[in-house]
C-alpha cells in the first residue's frame, strides 16, 4: 500500500451512481498510488465499468468526487482536460466502424492543425500497430475487423496517448494467449516508465501476474483494497462473492460409445478458414475445440450452427441434415448455441431479457403463434435464477445489463429449448468467476441430461470440462487430446509446436 504522505495518482471518493432503480455504485471509491498497476475486481454488475466511466469523465457521479494527483478533476465538458489525465480501453467498443483503422487510432488528432496527410497517417498507424504486434492493415475499414482485432485496436489506441494513467476495462476478454502475453509485456514496460494503470479482469490469475494492489467491489460497494501479495486467491474470491468458494471442478463423466451421435460434420470446408473438417459429437459428450488465433475454430463453429455458409461438406444434427447457412433449421433440429460476438448476434438490445432468452422457443409459449406473456415471464424468471443473472427482472432491456450478465442472457437463450446439441463459443468471455462456474455448469448439466456439446475456447479452464479437445491449426484438425491433458501439452499443440 502507499505511504500515507504520498499523494495518490488517482482518487475517487464516496461515489454514488444510480441508473433509475439500479444503484450501480453506492458510496464506493478507489485510491491508486502513483506508478502502480491496480486491479479492480468484482462480480458482473458490481459497478466496475460505471466507475470507469466516472473516472474518464463520461458520466457525472450523483455524489462524490474524483481527483488526479490531488487536483479536482476537470468539468465534464472539458474533454481535452480529461484526456490529458486518463486514457482508457472501454469494455464496450468505441471503434467507429465506418472509419479506417488508421483514423480510429488517431481520431480527433489526425493532424496537428493543418490538413490531414493520409499517407503519413497510415504509415504512423502501421508503425503503431506493428509496435503492439497487431497484424492489421491500417487502411482497412474498422467495421471489417473481427472482435479480437478491434480489441487490439482499442488497446493500441489507449496506450498510444502517452497518458500517465491508463484504464483497461477487461482488455483480455477477447484475446488469445499470445496476444495477452504481448499486452502484459507492454503493461510491464509502461509500468517501468512510471505509468499508473487500473486493470479490470475476471481472470484472477492475470491480476496476480500484472498487478500490485487490488480493490474489490461487491454489490456496488467497496469491499477491500489490499496488496496483491497479501491476498491469497481464495480470499480474493471470497471477497468478491461474499462467501468462501473453491475453483470450478470439472465433473467426471463417462460417455458410452453406444450413445447416439447428436452432431456431425463431414468434410466441412470453407475456403480460407477451414478445410475438410470431420467432427462427431455423441450424446452426453463435451468436445472442446482449441486453436490459436486464426486457426479457423470460430469459423467452424459458426458453420456448424448455420451462421456461415460452408463451401462444401455437410452438418447433421440429430440425424437431420441442416441446410447450410440456415440457423432456424439447425435450431429446429435441436441445436442451441452461443455466438462469439454477443453484441452482433447475441441479443436485441432494446428487447427485454425475457424476450431475448425465449426467442427460440417463442412457438412453445402459446398456441396458434401467440406468446403468453405470463409463461414467458415464468420461463425467464427460471432462467434468471438458474444462471444468477443480476437484473431488476425479466422485463429489463438487455441493453441495461452489465457485460457479463448480458452474456448470461445469451447462454440462457442457447439453453432455452433444452437442446440436444450445444455449440458454445467463448461462453465465459467477460463473466465473473461465479458466473463462469454457472455457465460451465450449465454446459455440463446439459451434457448430463444427454446433450452433446461443442465448446470453442482459448481458455484452458473452460476446456477442462471437455471429454476430449480437438485442436485446430491453420484450418485443419491436427490432433485430438483426451481428458487429462497438461496445460503445456495443449498449448504446444495449439501453437503448432507439437503437430505430430
Amino acid at each position: 500500500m502507499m505511504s500515507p504522505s504520498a499523494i495518490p495518482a488517482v482518487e475517487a471518493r464516496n461515489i454514488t451512481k444510480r441508473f433509475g432503480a439500479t444503484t450501480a455504485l453506492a458510496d464506493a471509491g478507489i485510491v491508486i498510488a502513483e506508478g502502480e498497476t491496480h486491479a479492480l475486481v468484482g462480480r458482473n454488475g458490481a459497478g466496475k465499468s460505471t466507475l470507469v466511466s466516472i473516472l474518464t469523465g463520461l458520466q457525472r457521479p450523483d455524489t462524490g468526487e474524483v481527483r488526479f494527483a490531488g487536483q479536482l478533476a476537470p468539468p465534464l465538458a472539458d474533454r481535452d482536460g480529461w484526456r490529458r489525465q486518463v486514457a482508457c480501453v472501454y469494455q464496450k467498443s468505441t471503434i467507429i466502424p465506418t472509419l479506417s483503422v488508421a483514423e480510429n487510432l488517431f481520431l480527433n488528432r489526425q493532424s496537428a492543425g493543418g490538413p490531414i496527410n493520409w499517407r503519413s497517417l497510415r504509415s504512423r498507424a502501421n508503425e503503431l500497430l506493428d509496435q503492439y504486434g497487431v497484424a492489421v492493415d491500417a487502411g482497412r475499414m474498422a467495421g471489417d475487423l473481427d472482435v479480437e482485432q478491434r480489441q487490439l485496436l482499442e488497446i493500441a489506441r489507449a496506450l498510444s496517448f502517452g497518458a500517465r494513467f491508463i484504464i483497461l476495462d477487461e482488455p483480455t476478454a477477447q484475446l488469445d494467449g499470445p496476444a495477452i502475453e504481448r499486452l502484459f509485456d507492454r503493461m510491464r514496460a509502461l509500468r517501468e516508465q512510471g505509468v499508473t494503470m487500473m486493470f479490470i479482469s475476471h481472470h484472477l490469475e492475470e491480476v496476480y501476474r500484472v498487478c500490485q494492489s487490488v480493490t474489490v467491489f461487491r454489490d456496488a460497494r467497496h469491499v477491500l483494497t489490499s496488496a496483491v501479495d497479501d491476498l491469497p486467491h481464495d480470499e480474493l474470491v471470497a471477497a468478491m462473492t461474499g462467501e468462501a468458494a473453491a475453483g470450478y471442478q470439472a465433473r467426471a463423466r463417462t460417455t458410452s460409445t453406444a450413445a447416439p451421435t447428436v452432431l456431425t460434420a463431414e468434410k466441412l470446408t470453407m475456403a480460407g478458414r477451414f478445410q475438410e473438417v470431420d467432427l462427431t459429437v455423441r450424446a452426453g459428450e463435451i468436445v472442446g475445440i482449441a486453436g490459436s488465433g486464426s486457426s479457423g475454430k470460430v469459423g467452424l463453429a459458426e458453420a456448424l450452427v448455420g451462421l456461415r455458409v460452408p463451401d462444401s461438406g455437410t452438418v447433421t444434427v440429430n440425424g437431420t441434415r441442416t441446410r447450410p447457412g440456415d440457423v432456424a433449421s439447425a435450431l429446429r433440429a435441436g441445436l442451441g448455441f452461443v455466438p462469439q460476438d454477443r453484441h452482433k448476434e447475441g441479443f436485441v438490445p432494446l428487447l427485454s431479457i425475457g424476450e431475448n432468452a425465449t426467442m427460440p422457443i417463442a412457438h412453445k409459449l402459446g398456441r396458434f403463434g401467440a406468446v403468453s406473456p405470463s409463461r414467458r415471464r415464468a420461463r425467464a424468471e427460471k432462467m434468471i435464477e438458474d444462471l444468477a443473472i443480476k437484473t431488476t427482472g425479466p422485463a429489463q432491456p438487455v441493453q441495461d445489463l452489465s457485460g457479463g450478465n448480458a452474456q448470461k442472457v445469451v447462454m440462457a437463450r442457447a439453453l432455452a429449448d433444452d437442446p440436444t446439441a450445444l455449440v458454445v463459443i467463448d461462453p465465459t468471455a467477460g463473466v465473473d468467476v461465479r458466473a463462469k462456474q454457472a455457465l460451465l455448469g450449465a454446459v455440463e448439466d446439459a451434457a448430463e441430461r444427454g446433450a452433446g456439446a461443442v465448446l470453442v475456447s482459448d481458455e484452458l479452464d473452460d476446456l477442462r470440462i471437455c471429454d476430449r479437445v480437438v485442436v485446430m491449426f491453420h484450418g485443419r484438425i491436427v490432433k485430438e487430446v483426451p481428458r487429462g491433458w497438461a496445460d503445456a501439452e495443449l498449448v504446444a499443440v495449439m501453437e503448432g509446436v507439437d503437430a505430430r
Partner: protein
Amino acid sequence: MTETTVASPGSPGGSPDKAPPPGGGHNGLGLARFRDLALVPAILVLIVVGALIEPAFLSADNLTNVLQQQTELSLLVLAEAIILIAGKFDLSLESTVGLAPALGVALVIPAASNGLGTDLPVALGVPICLLIGMLVGAFNALLILRFKLSAFIVTLGMLIVLRGLQIGFTGGQNLFALPESFLYLGNARWLGLPASVWICAVAYAAGIVTLGYFRHGRAVYAIGGNADAARAAGVRTDRVMWTVFVVAGLLAALAGLLMTGRLGSVAAAQGDGMIFTVFAAAVIGGISLDGGKGTLFGALCGVLVLGLINNILTLAGVSAQWIQAIYGGIILIALMLARLTTGKAQD
C-alpha cells in the same frame, strides 16, 4: 439516423437521461407504456381547445368525422409503422393508394369510361385492387431482400414509377365510372359508424395484438432491433420481412379502396404527398426511424393528433394565409409536450 444513440458503447451510460421509473422497480414495460402514452396529454389539450373554440366540436357527428377522415391515413401509418419497426422503409405506399384502385377499376370498366378494355368481371375489381397492393409489396421485397438494394431508394423509385404508371394508363384522367363494389366500403355505415372506421379499428387491433403477443409480431421488433441476433435466434428474417412488405402493400391498397369510395372517383393524383404525413404521424407517435422501437398504439395517437389539429383549424376558420404556419407550429408544440411528459430524449 442514429440520433441520440441508445444501445451504445463508449460507456455504460449510453443513455444518460433515463426517466425515473414508475414507482418502485425499474421496469421496461412501464417505460414502454409511458412512451406509448406520451401523446395522450397533447390529445387531451387538443380536445379541450377544440371544445372551447366550437361547441360543435364535441358532437358525436364531428368526432365521427374526425375518425372517418383519418381512416385512410391511419391504415397507411399502420403499414409504415410495421415496416419502420422492422427497420426498413417504404415510400411507395402513397402511390399504391392511387395505383391499386385505379388499376382495379380500369381492368373492370368498359373502355368507353376510360377503362383498359379488358372488361374483366366487375366482381373481380376489389380483389384485383388488393392483389395489386400485395404484388407491389412483394416487388419491393424482392428488390430489397433478394437484390439487397437500399429500401429508401427502391421505394422512392417505386413511388415515382407507380404514380407514373397510373398517369400513363389513365392518361392522367380521373376515373369516375366506378363499380358499386368500389364505393361500398368507403361509404357504408355499420352499427352507426362508418364502415371504414370499423375496418381501421379491426386492423389496428389485429396489428397491436399480433405485434404484442404473437411470435411473428415480436420477430418484427427483433429484426428491427438487431437483425443478426434475430437470425441467430432462429427467426426466419427474410420470410418475416416479405410478409411485412406484402401486408403493407395490402393495407395501402385497402386505404386506396376506402379513399376511392369516400371520394367517389380515383384521381390521377390520389394519395400524392401523403407519405410525408404518414411519416409525420408515425414518428410523432413514437416510432423510431432506426427500427425496433415504437408501438402501433403510439402511431395511432400520432394520427389522431394530426386529425384533431386539422379539424380544429377548420372549425376555427383560420385564414388560409396563416393556416400552414399555425399547423406546423402546433405540431412542434405537441412534440415538446410529448418530450416534457415523458422526459425522454427522442430519436
